[in-house]
């Protein structure tokens, strides 16, 4: 992946930067310039916020077959996480036995390596989730 395409998303990938619609109050992640519900009425009214990083597993899968950049970590747990702010996102759940992951399990975010641009390229970092306990 070209470096700039990843780099420009770093605020959300490193710090869970999100936004809240000033019209309906809904939290949106990653941030958007307009609220998909309020559309034109929300122009200029999107507030910058940061997700706290706490949430729970809404659904998950243990991935055995994946593109080659994930060869080193297979099998791994991918999950849809419902954040305490109400918004959902997709991420890996790590630092636990895949067999322990359950729907409803409390998790919190951490920063991990996501991948790299070939053998000698830039390393990409971003959020993954670990058991909250």
């Amino acid at each position, binding site marked *: 992946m070209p470096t700039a395409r990843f780099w420009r998303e770093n605020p959300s990938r490193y710090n869970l930067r999100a936004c809240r619609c000033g019209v309906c109050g809904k939290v949106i992640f990653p941030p958007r310039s307009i609220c998909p519900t309020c559309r034109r009425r929300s122009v200029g009214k999107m507030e910058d916020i940061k997700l706290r990083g706490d949430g729970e597993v809404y*659904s998950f899968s243990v991935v055995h077959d994946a*593109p080659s950049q994930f060869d080193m970590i297979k099998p791994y747990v991918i999950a849809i996480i419902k954040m305490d702010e109400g918004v959902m996102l997709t991420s890996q759940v790590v630092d636990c036995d895949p067999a322990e992951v359950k729907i409803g399990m409390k998790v919190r975010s951490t920063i991990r390596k996501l991948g790299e641009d070939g053998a000698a390229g830039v390393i990409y970092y971003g959020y993954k989730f670990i058991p909250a306990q």
Partner: protein
Amino acid sequence: MRDVAVIGIGDTKFGELWDCSFREIGIQAGLMAVGDAGLSGDEIDALYVGNMSGGRYIEQEHIGCVIADYSGMARNHIAATRVEAAGASGGLAIRQGYMAIASGLHDIVVVGGAEKMTDVPDQMSMAIQASAEDQQWEAIFGATFTSLHAMIARRHMHEYGTTREQIAQVAVKNHKHGALNPKAQFQREISLEAVLRSPPVAEPLGVFDCAPNSDGAAAVVLCAVEKAKKYTDSPIKITASAQASDTLALHHRVDICTFDANKIAATKAFKQAKIKPKDIDVAEMHDNFTISEILAIEDMGFFKKGEGGKATEEGQTVIGGKLAVNTSGGLKARGDPIGATGVAQIVEIVTQLRGEAGRRQVKGAEVGLAHNVGGVGGTVVVHILEAI
């Protein structure tokens, strides 16, 4: 708006067609369809081609021109357009052709769909298919296309008590149908145990829950109904064409066990055709994964939400059941050359409504439905067809 009919169909065998190039399979399907319609070729006003990712599968873009040229239609300089909506590319190409004729702009249009997936390694194909989901906020974190559907399956099991066995029955049923289709990629029946024991791809889904990588092409000739009788005694009318969109990322849905785009597109289609779900005799539905078919039959009103697995297990969707779903074998057994799939669905429905489906014929089929999905429900196209 003018009424539109299908007057010609053609499709290649689906599978690992090592000896055939992309353009060869495209032309093969197109020639069959034009021959079936009895056209010389000069009557054709326009060409639409469904193709998801020529650029990454065969490093060729400009697919409309490729097919127009090699089918000899570039000599007539006809309008040739490629249509892309991931897995719904083919169905959407059909809809473009339909709209072009319904609007009165064209009289006769050829719609093709083609994909050549086996020229790249499987892992690369997986990466290409991930571009149908949200590359920046799903795929990059390791969410494969299969794993997104696996999460739907897991949640469906959690909310509705759907069992792993019920989900697996979709594969058993579609292989049973595929065994009756001489052009299917997989023409062997499989047991429930084989599906359950197949190597995991993304739990709870295994290899036999997933449609394969396939090469293949399909084509249809569309014509204004008022002119159709000139070319065929058995035109099949498109009584509805509907399309709906949804969020790109699965995690932005309120409920991942329902594709709202399935519901909206189906509702619009039933309204346009002035019929109800119970009036459908045969349906081709987008079973890129076993769970996808369960969602589809529920979302579109054939079975109550949460009861799709049970209905499948009871044999209600097999040929001879309440509603015959995926008589061709579906994406699962017939194969899933992505851009060709939505067009191939129309070919199967027309074959059924003409009464030419041989051993897999649904007796007395008069009304058929084709349901084509792009990404994880981000685009849905539904067509309803009737014999006239």
